[in-house]
């Protein structure tokens, strides 16, 4: 002690500084590691607020595993070991249990049972915040589209601190799309700015942005009594402009919805139109043929789990073949004995539909099966801000068009088509001309059933794949065929599209239930007036 006092004060200070500096230099790497470990551990907090705080401090640590840990947490795969409280990445194993990897070091920890680990849960707010944090860290991504996505996520997270990060990012940015995205994002942040002029400018610019977030903020400003009248008026004006645009887009949207519903009706009905129209067979099992197509999609996806994107392309021909085979089996085993006896056919095919449903329940279980949607069919195509068309509907609309054209081609340009048309118009005469009507019957029924299967592939992307899938579409299909005129493909097309359109125009005003009833009433009245539908068959055969 005395010795220290003897030393001059400046020397003591200098000595201390040197020691501290050396310590910092030598241990900084280890300290960061310890820090990282401690912060990762603190993610396992009880309340979501504390988890949020921990995630924010984690994002501030420049560590190679930071993004990985945050992403794993977002994906819901961050767990904690019950006994040691060690934070781990857990992957579910087939047949129960988890495979564990240490979150801090990345060491493989082997597998563990369900009881050994506990999940670090996230809720919606936390998920949004995590997405923002990860996005901020990935602004440096070399891929411009990844940067645009990151900027969108940052805007969504609505964290005011992010504005400066974006502003700084703008300086070094060269890609024009990214610059535009950043500018839009900054406008959104500026709507909450303290400076009234900045705010006013932002409100003005924002009127060209139709995103829900902007509308929300503008509405809030328009309702806020604490802001200046000028701001409020500007907000109201901007909102008005947005409203007009939205209403215009809504019209376009409704038209698209109608077309889309119509295309599904056409797809479901067109197979029936062939069997019903050509052969006069009321096939109550038509819905189940659609269902078989959907289950074929499921099986195809099971067989090629690593290529979901391609699975649908494989499923289309597969479903056609499977459903066609089942259809031909039904025709050969039951229907051919009942030609010309519509009531018996109706009952027999109804029985077949029940058998098929229960068969599917026994083979696949009564539970719905999960058919995955490929990446390219998810999300929507943004035409302009505020007008977006969902991809799955768009593809199905195109698909329905292709199926229709192919079918027309088969019926108009091939020998089979010629024979089918001949049999449709007059069976006896066609037979007299040397057409083997039995063969035509088999092929026609197979064709109709196959098209139903193809419709099933499309429907598997929209609705549940379960034993009851077909039932919902049977009545609709009959409606379309009867309305369009039996045995006329163009009639089916026009009827399907117009019924879809009418339904969607009525729906916003009348509600889904009433809209459906109105359409049904309309068809009943229409059939009273024109019993043969929109496009009745002409010729002598139509008279008997």
């Amino acid at each position, binding site marked *: 002690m005395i010795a220290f006092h003897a030393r001059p004060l400046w020397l003591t200070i200098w000595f201390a500084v040197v020691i501290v500096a050396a310590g910092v230099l030598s241990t900084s790497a280890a300290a960061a590691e310890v820090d990282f470990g401690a912060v990762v551990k603190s993610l396992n907090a009880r309340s*979501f607020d504390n988890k949020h705080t921990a995630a924010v401090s984690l994002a501030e640590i420049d560590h190679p595993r930071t993004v990985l840990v945050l992403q794993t947490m977002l994906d*819901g795969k961050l767990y904690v070991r019950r006994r040691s409280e060690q934070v781990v990445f857990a992957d*579910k194993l087939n047949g*129960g249990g988890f495979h564990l990897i240490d979150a801090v070091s990345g060491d493989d920890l082997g597998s563990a049972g*369900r*009881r050994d680990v506990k*999940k670090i*849960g*996230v809720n*919606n*707010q936390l*998920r*949004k915040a995590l997405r923002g944090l990860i996005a901020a860290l990935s602004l440096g991504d070399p891929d411009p589209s990844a940067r645009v996505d990151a900027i969108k996520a940052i805007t969504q997270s609505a964290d005011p601190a992010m504005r400066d990060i974006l502003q700084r990012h703008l300086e070094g940015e060269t890609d024009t799309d990214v610059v535009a995205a950043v500018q839009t994002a900054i406008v959104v942040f500026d709507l909450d700015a303290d400076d009234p002029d900045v705010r006013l400018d932002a409100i003005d610019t924002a009127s060209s942005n139709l995103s*829900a977030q902007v*509308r*929300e*903020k*503008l*509405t*809030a400003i328009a*309702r806020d009594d604490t802001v200046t009248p000028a701001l409020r008026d500007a907000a109201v004006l901007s909102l008005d402009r947005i409203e007009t645009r*939205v209403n215009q887009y*809504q019209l376009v*949207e*409704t038209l698209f*919805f109608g077309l*889309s*519903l119509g295309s*599904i009706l056409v797809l479901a009905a067109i197979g029936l139109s062939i069997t019903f129209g050509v052969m006069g067979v009321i096939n109550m099992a038509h819905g189940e043929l659609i269902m078989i197509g959907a289950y074929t999609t499921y099986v195809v996806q099971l067989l090629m789990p690593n290529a979901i994107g391609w699975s649908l392309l494989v499923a289309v021909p597969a479903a056609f073949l499977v459903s066609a085979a089942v259809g031909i089996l039904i025709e050969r085993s039951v229907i051919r004995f009942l030609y010309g006896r519509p009531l018996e056919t109706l009952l027999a095919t109804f029985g077949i539909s029940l058998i098929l449903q*229960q068969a599917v*329940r026994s083979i696949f279980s*009564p539970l*719905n*099966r*999960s058919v*995955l*949607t490929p990446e390219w069919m*998810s*999300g*929507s195509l943004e035409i302009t801000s505020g007008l*977006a068309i*969902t*991809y*799955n*509907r768009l593809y199905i609309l195109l698909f329905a068009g292709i199926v229709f054209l192919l079918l027309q081609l088969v019926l108009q340009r091939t020998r089979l088509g010629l024979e089918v048309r001949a049999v449709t118009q007059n069976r006896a005469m066609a037979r007299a001309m040397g057409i083997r009507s039995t063969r035509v019957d088999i092929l026609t029924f197979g064709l109709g059933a196959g098209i139903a299967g193809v419709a099933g592939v499309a429907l598997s992307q*929209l*609705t*549940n794949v*379960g*034993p*009851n899938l077909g039932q*919902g579409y049977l009545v609709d299909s009959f409606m379309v065929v009867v309305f369009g005129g039996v045995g006329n493909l163009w009639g089916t097309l026009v009827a399907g599209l117009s019924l879809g359109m009418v*339904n*969607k125009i009525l*729906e*916003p005003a009348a*509600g*889904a*239930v009433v809209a*459906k009833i109105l359409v049904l009433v309309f068809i009943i009245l229409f059939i009273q007036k024109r019993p043969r539908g929109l496009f009745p068959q002409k010729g002598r055969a139509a008279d008997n």
Partner: protein
Amino acid sequence: MNLKRYSATLLSVATLILTPVALGADTIKVGVLHSLSGTMAISETTLKDTILMMVDEQNKAGGLLGKQLEAVVVDPASNWPLFAEKARELISKKKVDVVFGCWTSVSRKSVLPVFEELNGLLFYPVQYEGEESSKNVFYTGAAPNQQAIPAVDYLMDEIGAKRWILAGTDYVYPRTTNKILEAYLRSKGVKSKDIMINYTPFGHSDWQSIVSDIKKFGSTGMKTAVVSTINGDANVPFYKELGNQGISAEDIPVMAFSVGEEELSGIDTGPLVGHLAAWNYFMSVDADINQDFIDQWLKFIDDSDRVTNDPMEAHYIGFKMWVEAVKKAGSTDPTAVQDAIVGISVPNLSGGIATMMPNHHITKPVLIGEIQDDGQFDIVWQTRGTVVGDAWSDFLPGSRDITADWMPPLGCGNYNIKTGKCSGQNYE
């Protein structure tokens, strides 16, 4: 070799002859009235298996009153009138002592007169719209105040929802629940222009315009939430459309009352992540008793991919309560069990206690979960204790004054406090 086969045959013949005698003479029969075919098979088959598992477990533990239990399974095939016929068959012909069954409200309404006429016992395991209390029925699922009301409270207090979309399938449960919710929201000061009610037919699959409407309704600057009573099959296309139109759970959360683990196991859960469900039990509940139950179930059903869900827990609780009541009464006589069961407490699967109340409803905790990618729920909120099931909602004008109490001196399922009258069992 020959001798072996001969003796084996002899043995099986002997078993064949002996078994019915052994079973017929000294077993307690447990009826199972769940659809194993038709549209409801998807949900109800699991419940049949749950009861079979419980019966099996009870038998391994020495049976009940010194007798073995025997499950009698019938298939009402999702056909409502057939439910009544099968119920009559179970009670009058098969002489069962208790029935576990029904899923839809309409099937329950269909069997109700049969149980009341023949004085049977029915344990009903599914959340329902309330407005009913029968002497012969024990409601082990949630009443609206044990699911719908707390869920709306959560959306209001935790999420800050100001605008409400009540979307449902067009039948009795959503209509009644939405009526109660609308009255509740109005009592909380929500204006009618901030409530949108929408009904769709069963199995509705084209959600484009409705989702577009929801989007529009939710873009007015006030936090909007959807309360969904949409039934089973229509849910997948609904959530898919929400996802495709770019509405995430963070923008407009959907709180569902009929989407559970079983429903999620058959679908691509990607678009659903973050949306909410309110139940009284989740498979992800962190309790030892739940882990034991899951292990027991996976072993019984012999498939490690199967899940457990809320109605299964309700059957678990109902079965345990019935066993305790039979032990207490010392007999399986329905009237004795009806008297004995009120006040019986058994552990539930979330680490608490379920008690049978005099109105034949039970106490339950309410849990809110967010849907995860793996088809499970992350529990984000739960009530502190348990909530007592309320048969007659306090938020509907007609039922506010009605109370149910099957204990003496009242002994009535719909007693009007104001008029002091009991209006009989078949109150509508």
